[in-house]
């Protein structure tokens, strides 16, 4: 209780990851599905940064690989959000809906 260890962060990350997974698997609104994906990515980031601190404790203060990874993940998240929302807009313009289960045709 008094010491916050790496495991605490990992559990929090796992909880967020699960929330994200549930969101992706159950929601119909594409926007919220995309947000759930962001949630998953953030859970991963949290783990990476927690690992980074753990790694620093072992390998000295310059062992920041986890943080560098987190930055790359954030970059990917930005790219993913841009493309995902672009697809969403194109989709909405064609089908006037934002529900994933109505995107069941390869062509319309």
């Amino acid at each position, binding site marked *: 209780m008094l010491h916050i260890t790496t495991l605490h962060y990992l559990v929090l990350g796992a909880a967020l990851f699960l929330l994200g997974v549930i969101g992706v698997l159950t929601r119909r609104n594409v926007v919220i599905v995309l947000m759930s994906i962001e949630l998953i990515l953030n859970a991963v980031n949290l783990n990476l940064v927690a690992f980074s*601190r753990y790694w620093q404790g072992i390998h000295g203060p310059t062992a920041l690989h986890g943080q560098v990874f987190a930055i790359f993940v954030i970059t990917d998240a930005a790219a993913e*959000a841009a493309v995902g929302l672009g697809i969403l807009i194109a989709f909405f313009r064609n089908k006037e809906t934002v529900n994933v289960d109505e995107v069941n045709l390869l062509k319309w």
Partner: protein
Amino acid sequence: MNPAGMIPAGTNPPVATPFFFYLLAAIMVVGGVMVITRKNAVHSAMALITTLLAQAALYLMLYAPFVAGVQIILYAGGIMVLFLFVIMLISIERAEKERQFNKQWLVGIVAAAALGGLFIAVYTTTTKGRALFPEGRMTYGETQNTQQIAALLFDRTAGQYMFAFEIASLLLLVAIIGAVVMAKKRI
């Protein structure tokens, strides 16, 4: 500012770490739950922003101020604004009245529960009485964090991620072009 960027123990200890950790963790989990349960996408987005900001604070507690800054400037200030923009461009009045969950929601919950079980199994595993992840031994001051990350990314000798960095920039370029192609009416 000493060379190693390390704060000697005792001079400036973090204040009430457990309290802030649990507070922020609670905010994040509640925010996460709200993200996946709200009917209105704007409410979801606001909950996600709260989660992201709380996470930035957690990064600060993990002595990762640069990641925290990037989190705020990119995630909360950039990506989420994009989300809000898109939500406002597409009408959501209709989406609110519709069914919110898809037909496979039960399967999704079950799969997530299985995954959660897996997590619990992993985290409770102990080898020879030791937890998988024992606590880090030292806490490091954040005074040189940004410089060290920069060294990892750009330095000629210590830098390992320069190629990855360039690839990431290429990825962003592709994403920009892709997003423009997707979203533009007439090219």
